[in-house]
């Protein structure tokens, strides 16, 4: 397998190219620009046989990608932060139309004040849109998850759009070695474009005509079923990708030292790498702690989560976003989904940190996790919610 050294942005572009996207519709925004620039370069140099629609806004970017997808083309877009908020209306529209589309989101803090660094409010803002929401930890996973996204999105059991998150700068502008498959092997694994319907004039077809309440509700119930199916499909795709190219991640979640763990930490995104370092040290010191790294939050890995956390002595959820007036969105999801399986929740702590792109190091994680476990061992429960802020 050819090994390349790429930034996260160029990794996304390469993955989209190798997935043989046919239409790219995108609008530039820091820190996503590298994706658009690289794809434009691939297309102009003839290295990628695709059409680029250089739209005038993000709202139009997803609208145009949707149009291309409906007409039967494999379509791709990418954005970030304010761009994602501007296209939010379309994010809903695309999933409700059950049309496969893949989009990369370079997570960036939402203004005001202006801020270009990573936190996840933009990503979590898409929580209820009906998209499958994945999040990568490093550039290798950015590549793998992007090509997998097409396979998941175009699975007849799913037919839902997929969004892949990656951190601003920590991944988007940082070069890392990335293993890439041979094009032929990837073509064989991914297969040609599949979609539930196509509007290309071959027969009259109407998409989106006014529907009465009961009909509309049935469409949305079917979308929920598609999400349930997607859990299976994501696991299968992880497995078949692993078989073909040698990398498996564990499906919807990535388990790190979860075996024999009595305490559990939950996180998502690039800082999970720092958390792993902290876990390594804590394990060496004898702390029985493991990490659940979220690869997908929609569909939510409820069953996996319960199976791991059932009997846990303490859970810490690190959130890089805040639902103002409440708690971190990941914590809310974890807690709520556990109630589907049990009425006895373990002690759960929510630490919100890294907002606005504040750097959180492995040392911070080490101290926070260690202090929590030490307190719990002494019979002291730290407050459920902490906003960790350090200058």
């Amino acid at each position, binding site marked *: 397998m050819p090994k390349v050294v790429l930034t996260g942005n160029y990794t996304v572009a390469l993955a989209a190219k190798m997935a043989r996207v046919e239409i790219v519709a995108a609008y530039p925004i820091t820190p996503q620009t590298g994706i658009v620039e690289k794809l434009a370069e691939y297309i102009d140099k003839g290295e990628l046989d695709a059409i680029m629609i250089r739209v005038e806004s993000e709202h139009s970017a997803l*609208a145009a990608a949707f*149009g291309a997808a*409906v007409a039967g083309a494999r379509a791709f877009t990418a954005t970030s932060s304010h761009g994602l908020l501007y296209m939010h209306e*379309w994010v809903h529209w695309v999933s409700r139309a059950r049309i496969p589309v893949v989009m990369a989101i370079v997570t960036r803090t939402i203004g005001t004040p202006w801020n270009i660094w990573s936190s996840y409010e933009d990503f979590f803002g898409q929580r209820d849109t009906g998209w499958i929401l994945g999040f990568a930890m490093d550039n290798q996973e950015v590549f793998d998850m992007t090509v997998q996204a097409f396979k998941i999105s175009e699975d007849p059991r799913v037919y839902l759009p997929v969004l892949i998150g990656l951190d601003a700068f920590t991944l988007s502008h940082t070069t890392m070695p990335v293993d890439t498959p041979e094009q032929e092997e990837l073509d064989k694994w991914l297969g040609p474009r599949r979609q539930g319907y196509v509007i290309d004039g071959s027969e009259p077809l*109407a998409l*989106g005509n006014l529907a009465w309440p009961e009909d509309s509700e049935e469409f949305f119930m079917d979308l929920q079923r598609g999400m349930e199916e997607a859990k299976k499909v994501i696991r299968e795709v992880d497995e078949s990708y692993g078989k073909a190219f040698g990398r498996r991640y564990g499906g919807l979640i990535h388990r790190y030292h979860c075996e024999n763990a009595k305490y559990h930490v939950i996180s998502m995104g690039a800082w999970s790498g720092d958390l792993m370092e902290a876990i390594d040290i804590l394990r060496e010191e004898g702390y029985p702690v493991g990490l659940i790294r979220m690869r997908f939050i929609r569909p939510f890995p409820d069953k996996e989560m319960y199976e791991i956390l059932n009997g846990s002595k303490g859970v810490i959820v690190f959130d890089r976003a805040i639902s103002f007036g409440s708690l971190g969105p990941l914590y809310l999801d974890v807690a709520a989904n556990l109630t589907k399986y049990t009425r006895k929740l373990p002690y759960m702590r929510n630490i919100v940190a890294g907002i606005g792109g504040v750097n959180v190091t492995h040392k911070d994680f080490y101290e926070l996790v260690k202090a929590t476990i030490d307190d719990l061992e002494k019979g002291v429960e730290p407050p459920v919610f902490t906003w960790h802020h350090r200058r």
Partner: protein
Amino acid sequence: MARPIPPLPRDMRNTVLPGHAACHGCPITIGLKVVGAAFGNKVILVIPACCTSVVVGAWPGNAFNGSIVHVAFASAAAVASGIAEGLQKRGIKDVQVIAWAGDGGTADIGMASLSGAAERNNDFIYIMYDNEAYMNTGIQRSSATPPGAWTTTTPLGKLEPKKDVARIMIAHGVPYVATASIGYPHDFYAKLKKAARIRGFKFIYLHAPCPTGWRFDPAHTVKIAKLAVETGLVALYEYYDGRIHLSGPSRPYLDKSKRKSIEEYLKLQGRFKGIRDEDIKVIEKYVDDMWEWIKKHI
């Protein structure tokens, strides 16, 4: 002598099917029939929020004998761009993509995506059917509402002039811009046919008098549409090769003396009931200025 009138296919009646939800005297069904006459069912309409979103009927029915993609309000031109490029990528050439939007979805909320598609010269026809207000939401003013007109958000009459979108599109330098009226289906048909032969972005303005919103007898939709042309308020033309080509129905009205009185047009419509003399003067000036501009570019 005007060119011979092109024939309209007899099966154009099969375009808008029973079960549509249009008001009595609605101009939209007239316009859609002409679209059907020009393209049969080899057409994909991209429809943002507007009266037509309702007119084509409720799921699982479809009262338009062709393909439809309903889209969010501001995005008809963007989705049509995507469909056109997607079809091109797949080598499909026998299907006409048409963005079919009202004046609100074009002149107001859709202006940015329209301008973007025009500047990119994406290959489809954009039709703005102009019923001169937000009719689907219950007659609120748009930037294409004429001055003096009553709407529910301008209860004393609109103060601002009408936005001339065709001229804005000409300024984009696109290969083809035309104005048409549902009162002249042959002219509209010929323009659709011509637009379909041109590659790139085509814009057609379609004047569409609305009996419900303009407060006139639904029997008079075509009569009012024709009066708008005969008074010179609406000029039917094509713009290509850098100049205006005045269309047959409007040619006599280059001569101001041939134009009927604007008041004849206004008095048939309840929305102009309380119009002030100064508003009529604003409308007359708008008409004079437009014709001066036409003369300069002919």
